[in-house]
Protein backbone atom coordinates (compact mmCIF):
# COMPACT_ATOMS: atom_id res chain seq x y z
CA UNK A 1 0.00 0.00 0.00
CA UNK A 2 2.66 2.50 1.06
CA UNK A 3 4.76 1.64 -1.93
CA UNK A 4 2.03 2.77 -4.31
CA UNK A 5 1.14 5.79 -2.19
CA UNK A 6 4.71 6.93 -2.51
CA UNK A 7 4.32 7.24 -6.27
CA UNK A 8 1.03 9.06 -5.81
CA UNK A 9 2.63 11.48 -3.38
CA UNK A 10 5.58 11.98 -5.66
CA UNK A 11 3.21 12.84 -8.49
CA UNK A 12 1.19 15.28 -6.35
CA UNK A 13 4.18 17.07 -4.89
CA UNK A 14 5.58 17.64 -8.34
CA UNK A 15 2.42 19.34 -9.58
CA UNK A 16 3.04 22.29 -7.23
CA UNK A 17 -0.69 22.89 -6.71
CA UNK A 18 -0.24 21.60 -3.18
CA UNK A 19 2.56 24.07 -2.61
CA UNK A 20 0.35 26.94 -3.78
CA UNK A 21 -2.45 25.77 -1.47
CA UNK A 22 -0.06 25.64 1.48
CA UNK A 23 1.21 29.14 0.81
CA UNK A 24 -2.33 30.43 0.39
CA UNK A 25 -3.43 29.01 3.76
CA UNK A 26 -0.25 30.19 5.42
CA UNK A 27 -0.70 33.73 4.13
CA UNK A 28 -4.30 33.91 5.31
CA UNK A 29 -3.55 32.49 8.75
CA UNK A 30 -0.55 34.66 9.44
CA UNK A 31 -2.31 37.80 8.13
CA UNK A 32 -5.37 37.18 10.29
CA UNK A 33 -3.31 36.63 13.42
CA UNK A 34 -1.27 39.76 12.66
CA UNK A 35 -4.32 41.93 11.98
CA UNK A 36 -6.40 41.07 15.01
CA UNK A 37 -5.25 42.03 18.47
CA UNK A 38 -7.29 39.28 20.01
CA UNK A 39 -6.12 35.88 18.77
CA UNK A 40 -9.47 34.23 19.49
CA UNK A 41 -11.16 36.71 17.15
CA UNK A 42 -8.61 35.83 14.51
CA UNK A 43 -9.38 32.19 15.12
CA UNK A 44 -13.07 32.89 14.53
CA UNK A 45 -12.36 34.46 11.13
CA UNK A 46 -9.97 31.66 10.32
CA UNK A 47 -12.66 29.13 11.18
CA UNK A 48 -15.04 30.63 8.65
CA UNK A 49 -12.42 30.56 5.94
CA UNK A 50 -11.35 27.02 6.76
CA UNK A 51 -14.92 25.74 6.63
CA UNK A 52 -15.35 27.13 3.10
CA UNK A 53 -11.91 26.70 1.56
CA UNK A 54 -10.84 23.30 2.88
CA UNK A 55 -13.84 21.35 1.54
CA UNK A 56 -13.74 23.19 -1.79
CA UNK A 57 -10.03 22.69 -2.42
CA UNK A 58 -10.10 19.09 -1.20
CA UNK A 59 -12.95 18.18 -3.51
CA UNK A 60 -11.71 19.93 -6.63
CA UNK A 61 -8.13 18.83 -6.16
CA UNK A 62 -9.01 15.21 -5.40
CA UNK A 63 -11.35 15.00 -8.39
CA UNK A 64 -8.85 16.46 -10.82
CA UNK A 65 -6.10 14.31 -9.38
CA UNK A 66 -8.20 11.17 -9.80
CA UNK A 67 -8.85 11.83 -13.46
CA UNK A 68 -5.24 12.81 -14.07
CA UNK A 69 -4.01 9.55 -12.60
CA UNK A 70 -6.21 7.50 -14.86
CA UNK A 71 -3.16 6.35 -16.82
CA UNK A 72 -1.44 5.30 -13.63
CA UNK A 73 -4.53 3.40 -12.51
CA UNK A 74 -4.80 1.73 -15.89
CA UNK A 75 -1.17 0.70 -15.79
CA UNK A 76 -1.50 -0.73 -12.29
CA UNK A 77 -4.59 -2.74 -13.21
CA UNK A 78 -2.60 -4.97 -15.55
CA UNK A 79 -0.10 -5.64 -12.77
CA UNK A 80 -0.55 -8.02 -9.85
CA UNK A 81 -2.05 -5.35 -7.61
CA UNK A 82 -5.55 -5.47 -6.14
CA UNK A 83 -8.02 -2.78 -7.05
CA UNK A 84 -8.71 -1.92 -3.44
CA UNK A 85 -5.04 -1.28 -2.95
CA UNK A 86 -4.85 0.93 -6.03
CA UNK A 87 -7.74 3.13 -4.96
CA UNK A 88 -6.70 3.26 -1.31
CA UNK A 89 -3.19 4.30 -2.29
CA UNK A 90 -4.61 7.07 -4.43
CA UNK A 91 -6.85 8.17 -1.59
CA UNK A 92 -4.20 8.08 1.10
CA UNK A 93 -1.71 9.87 -1.11
CA UNK A 94 -4.19 12.63 -1.92
CA UNK A 95 -5.66 13.04 1.55
CA UNK A 96 -2.25 12.90 3.22
CA UNK A 97 -0.78 15.60 1.02
CA UNK A 98 -3.83 17.88 1.41
CA UNK A 99 -3.72 17.40 5.18
CA UNK A 100 -0.01 18.10 5.26
CA UNK A 101 -0.74 21.36 3.43
CA UNK A 102 -3.41 22.24 5.92
CA UNK A 103 -1.22 21.38 8.91
CA UNK A 104 1.58 23.58 7.60
CA UNK A 105 -0.65 26.38 6.35
CA UNK A 106 -3.08 26.60 9.28
CA UNK A 107 -1.78 24.24 11.95
CA UNK A 108 1.62 25.82 12.42
CA UNK A 109 0.37 29.42 12.71
CA UNK A 110 -2.37 28.34 15.13
CA UNK A 111 0.15 26.53 17.29
CA UNK A 112 2.36 29.62 17.27
CA UNK A 113 -0.28 32.27 17.94
CA UNK A 114 -3.08 30.54 19.77
CA UNK A 115 -2.20 27.25 21.31
CA UNK A 116 -5.27 26.24 23.31
CA UNK A 117 -8.21 23.87 23.16
CA UNK A 118 -9.98 25.91 20.47
CA UNK A 119 -6.87 26.02 18.32
CA UNK A 120 -6.41 22.27 18.53
CA UNK A 121 -10.09 21.73 17.76
CA UNK A 122 -9.72 23.85 14.63
CA UNK A 123 -6.75 21.80 13.48
CA UNK A 124 -8.63 18.55 14.11
CA UNK A 125 -11.75 19.74 12.29
CA UNK A 126 -9.78 21.01 9.29
CA UNK A 127 -7.90 17.74 8.97
CA UNK A 128 -11.11 15.74 9.34
CA UNK A 129 -12.84 17.85 6.67
CA UNK A 130 -9.90 17.25 4.32
CA UNK A 131 -10.26 13.49 4.67
CA UNK A 132 -14.06 13.67 4.41
CA UNK A 133 -14.21 15.76 1.27
CA UNK A 134 -11.40 13.86 -0.42
CA UNK A 135 -13.39 10.72 0.22
CA UNK A 136 -16.61 12.25 -1.18
CA UNK A 137 -14.68 13.44 -4.22
CA UNK A 138 -13.31 9.95 -4.81
CA UNK A 139 -16.77 8.48 -4.69
CA UNK A 140 -18.06 11.04 -7.16
CA UNK A 141 -15.10 10.48 -9.51
CA UNK A 142 -15.35 6.71 -9.46
CA UNK A 143 -19.04 6.95 -10.38
CA UNK A 144 -18.72 9.55 -13.13
CA UNK A 145 -16.75 8.38 -16.08
CA UNK A 146 -15.84 11.70 -17.66
CA UNK A 147 -13.91 14.49 -16.06
CA UNK A 148 -16.37 17.31 -16.66
CA UNK A 149 -19.19 15.43 -15.02
CA UNK A 150 -16.98 14.36 -12.13
CA UNK A 151 -15.91 17.91 -11.35
CA UNK A 152 -19.49 19.09 -11.78
CA UNK A 153 -20.75 16.57 -9.24
CA UNK A 154 -17.93 17.48 -6.85
CA UNK A 155 -18.84 21.18 -7.07
CA UNK A 156 -22.54 20.46 -6.60
CA UNK A 157 -21.76 18.45 -3.48
CA UNK A 158 -19.68 21.33 -2.17
CA UNK A 159 -22.48 23.83 -2.86
CA UNK A 160 -24.87 21.52 -1.12
CA UNK A 161 -22.81 21.06 2.02
CA UNK A 162 -21.45 24.59 2.24
CA UNK A 163 -24.50 26.63 1.24
CA UNK A 164 -27.71 24.85 0.28
CA UNK A 165 -27.91 22.61 3.31
CA UNK A 166 -27.95 25.55 5.72
CA UNK A 167 -30.77 27.09 3.73
CA UNK A 168 -32.77 23.88 3.94
CA UNK A 169 -32.23 23.58 7.67
CA UNK A 170 -33.28 27.20 8.19
CA UNK A 171 -36.43 26.62 6.15
CA UNK A 172 -37.33 23.60 8.25
CA UNK A 173 -36.64 25.42 11.48
CA UNK A 174 -38.68 28.40 10.33
CA UNK A 175 -41.64 26.33 9.16
CA UNK A 176 -41.82 24.32 12.35
CA UNK A 177 -40.80 27.04 14.75
CA UNK A 178 -43.87 26.39 16.93
CA UNK A 179 -42.53 23.00 17.91
CA UNK A 180 -39.57 22.12 20.09
CA UNK A 181 -36.80 21.44 17.60
CA UNK A 182 -33.69 21.12 19.72
CA UNK A 183 -33.35 17.38 19.24
CA UNK A 184 -34.09 17.67 15.53
CA UNK A 185 -31.47 20.35 14.94
CA UNK A 186 -28.99 18.20 16.76
CA UNK A 187 -29.75 15.31 14.44
CA UNK A 188 -29.74 17.54 11.35
CA UNK A 189 -26.30 18.89 12.16
CA UNK A 190 -24.89 15.36 12.00
CA UNK A 191 -26.00 15.11 8.38
CA UNK A 192 -23.55 17.75 7.26
CA UNK A 193 -19.88 17.49 8.22
CA UNK A 194 -19.31 21.21 7.63
CA UNK A 195 -22.10 22.16 10.04
CA UNK A 196 -20.97 19.62 12.55
CA UNK A 197 -17.45 21.01 12.41
CA UNK A 198 -18.74 24.54 12.82
CA UNK A 199 -20.89 23.70 15.85
CA UNK A 200 -18.14 21.62 17.39
CA UNK A 201 -15.80 24.61 17.18
CA UNK A 202 -18.23 27.39 18.04
CA UNK A 203 -19.14 25.72 21.29
CA UNK A 204 -15.53 25.77 22.31
CA UNK A 205 -15.57 29.53 21.81
CA UNK A 206 -17.37 32.17 23.84
CA UNK A 207 -19.71 33.09 21.00
CA UNK A 208 -21.95 30.14 21.84
CA UNK A 209 -23.51 32.38 24.48
CA UNK A 210 -25.12 34.29 21.59
CA UNK A 211 -26.87 31.30 20.14
CA UNK A 212 -29.91 31.36 22.37
CA UNK A 213 -31.86 28.35 23.56
CA UNK A 214 -30.69 26.00 20.78
CA UNK A 215 -27.16 27.06 21.66
CA UNK A 216 -27.78 25.98 25.21
CA UNK A 217 -28.98 22.55 24.08
CA UNK A 218 -25.95 22.28 21.85
CA UNK A 219 -23.67 23.36 24.63
CA UNK A 220 -25.20 20.74 26.86
CA UNK A 221 -24.62 18.04 24.31
CA UNK A 222 -21.46 18.95 22.41
CA UNK A 223 -19.85 20.54 25.42
CA UNK A 224 -19.78 17.21 27.22
CA UNK A 225 -16.99 14.78 26.52
CA UNK A 226 -19.57 12.39 25.09
CA UNK A 227 -20.62 15.11 22.62
CA UNK A 228 -17.02 15.64 21.53
CA UNK A 229 -16.56 11.93 20.99
CA UNK A 230 -19.88 11.77 19.18
CA UNK A 231 -18.94 14.51 16.73
CA UNK A 232 -15.53 12.99 16.07
CA UNK A 233 -17.20 9.63 15.50
CA UNK A 234 -19.67 11.13 13.03
CA UNK A 235 -16.84 12.90 11.21
CA UNK A 236 -15.02 9.59 11.00
CA UNK A 237 -18.11 7.96 9.50
CA UNK A 238 -18.33 10.78 6.97
CA UNK A 239 -14.81 9.95 5.85
CA UNK A 240 -15.11 6.16 5.79
CA UNK A 241 -18.55 5.54 4.32
CA UNK A 242 -18.06 7.37 0.98
CA UNK A 243 -14.60 5.85 0.72
CA UNK A 244 -16.00 2.39 1.30
CA UNK A 245 -18.68 3.00 -1.34
CA UNK A 246 -16.02 4.27 -3.72
CA UNK A 247 -13.88 1.16 -3.25
CA UNK A 248 -16.91 -1.03 -3.71
CA UNK A 249 -17.94 0.49 -7.00
CA UNK A 250 -14.33 0.77 -8.19
CA UNK A 251 -13.97 -2.98 -7.70
CA UNK A 252 -16.92 -3.63 -9.99
CA UNK A 253 -16.01 -1.12 -12.62
CA UNK A 254 -14.76 -1.69 -16.17
CA UNK A 255 -11.70 0.39 -16.86
Amino acid sequence: MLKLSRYVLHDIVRSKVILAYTLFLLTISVTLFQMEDNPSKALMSLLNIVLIVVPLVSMVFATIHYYNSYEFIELMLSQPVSRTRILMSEYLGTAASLSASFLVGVGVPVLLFNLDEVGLALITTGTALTFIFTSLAFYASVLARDKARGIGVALMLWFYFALIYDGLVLTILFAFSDYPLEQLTLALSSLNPVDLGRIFLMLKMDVSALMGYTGATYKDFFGSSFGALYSLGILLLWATIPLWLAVRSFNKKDL
Partner: protein
Amino acid sequence: MISVEHITKKFKKLYALDDVSASFHKGQVVSLIGPNGSGKTTLIKSILGIVQPDGGTIRFSGQAISNQYQYRDQIGYMPQIGRYPDNMTIGQVIDMIKNIRNNAGARLDEELLESYNMQALLGKNMRSLSGGTRQKVSAVLAFLFDPDVLILDEPTAGLDPLATEILKDKIMAEKEKGKLILITSHILSDLDELTTDVMYLQDGRLRLYQPIEELKELTGESRLGRAIAAVMKSGYTQLQPTPGAIIKNMEVHYA
Protein backbone atom coordinates in the same frame (compact mmCIF):
# COMPACT_ATOMS: atom_id res chain seq x y z
CA MET B 1 -3.73 -22.73 -18.53
CA ILE B 2 -6.47 -20.21 -19.18
CA SER B 3 -10.02 -21.30 -19.74
CA VAL B 4 -12.88 -19.06 -20.68
CA GLU B 5 -16.34 -20.45 -19.99
CA HIS B 6 -19.47 -18.87 -21.45
CA ILE B 7 -18.24 -15.32 -21.12
CA THR B 8 -20.79 -12.64 -21.89
CA LYS B 9 -20.25 -8.92 -21.77
CA LYS B 10 -22.73 -6.26 -22.76
CA PHE B 11 -21.99 -2.59 -23.25
CA LYS B 12 -25.38 -0.94 -23.09
CA LYS B 13 -27.35 -2.96 -25.64
CA LEU B 14 -24.40 -4.14 -27.65
CA TYR B 15 -22.96 -7.57 -27.00
CA ALA B 16 -19.18 -7.21 -26.93
CA LEU B 17 -18.85 -10.87 -26.03
CA ASP B 18 -21.66 -13.33 -26.48
CA ASP B 19 -21.23 -16.70 -24.79
CA VAL B 20 -17.58 -17.21 -25.67
CA SER B 21 -15.88 -20.38 -24.46
CA ALA B 22 -12.35 -21.49 -25.19
CA SER B 23 -9.27 -22.77 -23.49
CA PHE B 24 -5.64 -21.89 -24.01
CA HIS B 25 -2.64 -24.03 -23.15
CA LYS B 26 1.08 -23.70 -22.76
CA GLY B 27 3.01 -23.68 -26.00
CA GLN B 28 0.12 -22.21 -28.00
CA VAL B 29 0.40 -18.98 -29.90
CA VAL B 30 -3.19 -17.97 -30.44
CA SER B 31 -4.04 -15.30 -32.98
CA LEU B 32 -7.22 -13.45 -32.15
CA ILE B 33 -8.63 -12.17 -35.39
CA GLY B 34 -11.78 -10.32 -36.24
CA PRO B 35 -13.12 -7.04 -37.57
CA ASN B 36 -12.95 -3.85 -35.51
CA GLY B 37 -15.32 -4.04 -32.59
CA SER B 38 -15.61 -7.80 -32.68
CA GLY B 39 -14.69 -8.20 -29.01
CA LYS B 40 -11.00 -9.12 -29.20
CA THR B 41 -9.81 -6.47 -26.79
CA THR B 42 -12.80 -7.04 -24.50
CA LEU B 43 -11.87 -10.71 -24.30
CA ILE B 44 -8.26 -9.85 -23.47
CA LYS B 45 -9.30 -7.28 -20.90
CA SER B 46 -11.69 -9.76 -19.32
CA ILE B 47 -8.85 -12.24 -18.93
CA LEU B 48 -6.82 -9.51 -17.25
CA GLY B 49 -9.70 -8.53 -15.00
CA ILE B 50 -9.76 -4.98 -16.33
CA VAL B 51 -13.23 -5.54 -17.74
CA GLN B 52 -15.64 -7.50 -15.58
CA PRO B 53 -17.80 -9.87 -17.63
CA ASP B 54 -21.56 -9.97 -17.01
CA GLY B 55 -21.67 -13.74 -17.05
CA GLY B 56 -19.42 -16.76 -17.25
CA THR B 57 -16.17 -17.69 -15.57
CA ILE B 58 -12.54 -17.28 -16.49
CA ARG B 59 -10.04 -19.63 -14.91
CA PHE B 60 -6.32 -19.23 -14.68
CA SER B 61 -4.56 -22.49 -13.85
CA GLY B 62 -7.89 -23.83 -12.65
CA GLN B 63 -8.64 -20.89 -10.33
CA ALA B 64 -11.53 -18.54 -11.08
CA ILE B 65 -10.07 -15.08 -11.47
CA SER B 66 -12.94 -12.94 -10.21
CA ASN B 67 -11.63 -10.61 -7.50
CA GLN B 68 -8.19 -12.19 -7.73
CA TYR B 69 -5.10 -10.28 -8.75
CA GLN B 70 -2.14 -12.45 -7.86
CA TYR B 71 -2.41 -14.43 -11.08
CA ARG B 72 -1.46 -11.32 -13.06
CA ASP B 73 2.05 -11.90 -11.77
CA GLN B 74 2.33 -14.56 -14.47
CA ILE B 75 1.03 -12.35 -17.27
CA GLY B 76 2.87 -9.86 -19.42
CA TYR B 77 0.40 -7.50 -21.07
CA MET B 78 1.03 -5.17 -23.94
CA PRO B 79 -1.99 -2.90 -24.38
CA GLN B 80 -3.25 -1.65 -27.70
CA ILE B 81 -2.66 1.94 -26.63
CA GLY B 82 -0.09 2.15 -23.90
CA ARG B 83 -0.98 4.98 -21.58
CA TYR B 84 1.53 6.02 -18.96
CA PRO B 85 1.71 8.77 -16.34
CA ASP B 86 2.65 11.87 -18.29
CA ASN B 87 5.16 13.34 -15.95
CA MET B 88 7.30 10.27 -15.41
CA THR B 89 10.34 9.31 -17.43
CA ILE B 90 10.73 5.93 -19.13
CA GLY B 91 13.26 4.92 -16.49
CA GLN B 92 10.92 5.86 -13.66
CA VAL B 93 8.03 3.90 -15.15
CA ILE B 94 10.19 0.81 -15.58
CA ASP B 95 11.60 1.13 -12.06
CA MET B 96 8.10 1.62 -10.64
CA ILE B 97 6.78 -1.54 -12.27
CA LYS B 98 9.86 -3.47 -11.14
CA ASN B 99 9.29 -2.19 -7.62
CA ILE B 100 5.61 -3.14 -7.65
CA ARG B 101 6.08 -6.59 -9.11
CA ASN B 102 8.58 -7.00 -6.33
CA ASN B 103 10.03 -10.31 -7.40
CA ALA B 104 13.40 -9.40 -6.05
CA GLY B 105 16.09 -11.78 -7.19
CA ALA B 106 14.01 -13.09 -10.08
CA ARG B 107 15.77 -12.88 -13.39
CA LEU B 108 14.67 -9.95 -15.49
CA ASP B 109 14.49 -10.30 -19.22
CA GLU B 110 16.08 -7.10 -20.46
CA GLU B 111 16.71 -8.31 -23.97
CA LEU B 112 14.21 -5.95 -25.58
CA LEU B 113 15.51 -3.07 -23.49
CA GLU B 114 18.86 -3.62 -25.14
CA SER B 115 17.73 -4.39 -28.65
CA TYR B 116 15.52 -1.29 -28.68
CA ASN B 117 18.45 0.67 -27.31
CA MET B 118 16.16 1.92 -24.59
CA GLN B 119 18.95 2.79 -22.17
CA ALA B 120 19.61 5.93 -24.17
CA LEU B 121 15.97 6.99 -23.72
CA LEU B 122 15.50 6.24 -20.02
CA GLY B 123 15.60 9.93 -19.07
CA LYS B 124 12.91 10.89 -21.58
CA ASN B 125 9.55 12.07 -20.37
CA MET B 126 6.56 9.86 -21.25
CA ARG B 127 4.67 12.94 -22.46
CA SER B 128 7.20 13.61 -25.21
CA LEU B 129 7.24 10.09 -26.66
CA SER B 130 6.02 9.17 -30.11
CA GLY B 131 3.43 6.43 -30.51
CA GLY B 132 6.05 3.96 -31.67
CA THR B 133 8.36 4.62 -28.72
CA ARG B 134 5.47 4.20 -26.30
CA GLN B 135 4.73 0.91 -27.97
CA LYS B 136 8.35 -0.12 -27.42
CA VAL B 137 8.05 0.77 -23.72
CA SER B 138 4.92 -1.41 -23.53
CA ALA B 139 6.78 -4.27 -25.19
CA VAL B 140 9.74 -3.94 -22.83
CA LEU B 141 7.41 -4.01 -19.82
CA ALA B 142 5.43 -6.99 -21.11
CA PHE B 143 8.51 -9.16 -21.54
CA LEU B 144 10.53 -7.81 -18.61
CA PHE B 145 9.43 -10.27 -15.95
CA ASP B 146 9.71 -13.39 -18.07
CA PRO B 147 6.02 -14.27 -17.50
CA ASP B 148 4.43 -17.60 -18.46
CA VAL B 149 1.66 -15.92 -20.40
CA LEU B 150 2.02 -13.05 -22.84
CA ILE B 151 -0.99 -11.08 -23.97
CA LEU B 152 -0.20 -8.78 -26.84
CA ASP B 153 -2.90 -6.47 -28.16
CA GLU B 154 -1.90 -5.16 -31.57
CA PRO B 155 1.80 -5.36 -30.69
CA THR B 156 3.16 -4.18 -34.01
CA ALA B 157 0.81 -1.26 -34.61
CA GLY B 158 2.90 1.88 -34.89
CA LEU B 159 6.25 0.15 -34.80
CA ASP B 160 8.79 0.73 -37.56
CA PRO B 161 9.80 -2.31 -39.67
CA LEU B 162 13.04 -2.86 -37.78
CA ALA B 163 11.31 -2.74 -34.39
CA THR B 164 8.58 -5.05 -35.70
CA GLU B 165 11.17 -7.61 -36.73
CA ILE B 166 12.89 -7.41 -33.36
CA LEU B 167 9.55 -7.92 -31.61
CA LYS B 168 8.61 -10.85 -33.84
CA ASP B 169 11.95 -12.51 -33.17
CA LYS B 170 11.38 -12.02 -29.47
CA ILE B 171 7.88 -13.53 -29.64
CA MET B 172 9.33 -16.44 -31.61
CA ALA B 173 11.98 -17.00 -28.95
CA GLU B 174 9.35 -16.97 -26.18
CA LYS B 175 7.23 -19.40 -28.17
CA GLU B 176 10.21 -21.77 -28.27
CA LYS B 177 10.30 -21.63 -24.47
CA GLY B 178 6.78 -23.07 -24.46
CA LYS B 179 4.88 -20.04 -23.23
CA LEU B 180 1.27 -19.27 -23.93
CA ILE B 181 0.98 -16.24 -26.16
CA LEU B 182 -2.23 -14.47 -27.19
CA ILE B 183 -1.91 -11.96 -29.99
CA THR B 184 -4.41 -9.77 -31.75
CA SER B 185 -3.43 -8.08 -34.93
CA HIS B 186 -4.86 -6.91 -38.19
CA ILE B 187 -1.58 -7.46 -39.96
CA LEU B 188 -2.04 -11.13 -40.74
CA SER B 189 1.34 -11.49 -42.40
CA ASP B 190 2.93 -10.66 -39.05
CA LEU B 191 1.03 -13.49 -37.44
CA ASP B 192 1.64 -16.07 -40.13
CA GLU B 193 4.99 -17.34 -38.92
CA LEU B 194 4.12 -17.17 -35.22
CA THR B 195 0.68 -18.62 -34.90
CA THR B 196 -0.20 -22.13 -33.87
CA ASP B 197 -3.95 -21.53 -33.49
CA VAL B 198 -6.42 -19.11 -34.95
CA MET B 199 -9.40 -17.70 -33.15
CA TYR B 200 -11.91 -15.74 -35.14
CA LEU B 201 -14.39 -13.46 -33.41
CA GLN B 202 -17.20 -11.55 -34.98
CA ASP B 203 -19.88 -9.46 -33.30
CA GLY B 204 -18.77 -10.86 -29.98
CA ARG B 205 -19.21 -14.46 -31.04
CA LEU B 206 -16.57 -17.07 -31.39
CA ARG B 207 -16.82 -18.16 -35.01
CA LEU B 208 -13.79 -20.36 -35.27
CA TYR B 209 -10.96 -21.68 -33.12
CA GLN B 210 -8.64 -24.11 -34.83
CA PRO B 211 -5.00 -25.03 -35.24
CA ILE B 212 -3.55 -23.14 -38.17
CA GLU B 213 -2.34 -26.24 -39.96
CA GLU B 214 -5.82 -27.68 -39.97
CA LEU B 215 -7.23 -24.40 -41.19
CA LYS B 216 -4.76 -24.13 -44.02
CA GLU B 217 -5.36 -27.68 -45.04
CA LEU B 218 -9.13 -27.32 -45.01
CA THR B 219 -9.15 -24.13 -47.03
CA GLY B 220 -6.40 -25.28 -49.31
CA GLU B 221 -4.56 -22.00 -48.75
CA SER B 222 -0.99 -21.76 -47.58
CA ARG B 223 -1.15 -18.26 -46.17
CA LEU B 224 -3.04 -17.20 -43.11
CA GLY B 225 -4.51 -14.13 -44.80
CA ARG B 226 -5.99 -16.11 -47.63
CA ALA B 227 -7.16 -18.87 -45.35
CA ILE B 228 -9.04 -16.34 -43.25
CA ALA B 229 -10.50 -14.72 -46.34
CA ALA B 230 -11.70 -18.15 -47.41
CA VAL B 231 -13.34 -18.71 -44.07
CA MET B 232 -15.03 -15.33 -44.20
CA LYS B 233 -16.41 -16.08 -47.63
CA SER B 234 -17.71 -19.45 -46.57
CA GLY B 235 -19.83 -17.86 -43.90
CA TYR B 236 -17.50 -17.80 -40.88
CA THR B 237 -18.34 -21.26 -39.70
CA GLN B 238 -16.04 -23.66 -37.98
CA LEU B 239 -14.72 -25.93 -40.70
CA GLN B 240 -15.40 -29.58 -40.23
CA PRO B 241 -12.48 -31.85 -40.99
CA THR B 242 -13.97 -33.04 -44.28
CA PRO B 243 -11.69 -31.39 -46.83
CA GLY B 244 -13.40 -31.53 -50.21
CA ALA B 245 -16.54 -29.72 -49.13
CA ILE B 246 -15.18 -26.32 -48.28
CA ILE B 247 -12.85 -26.24 -51.25
CA LYS B 248 -15.73 -26.85 -53.62
CA ASN B 249 -17.59 -24.12 -51.87
CA MET B 250 -14.59 -21.85 -52.41
CA GLU B 251 -14.46 -22.53 -56.11
CA VAL B 252 -18.01 -21.40 -56.47
CA HIS B 253 -17.15 -18.15 -54.77
CA TYR B 254 -14.03 -17.58 -56.76
CA ALA B 255 -15.71 -18.26 -60.07
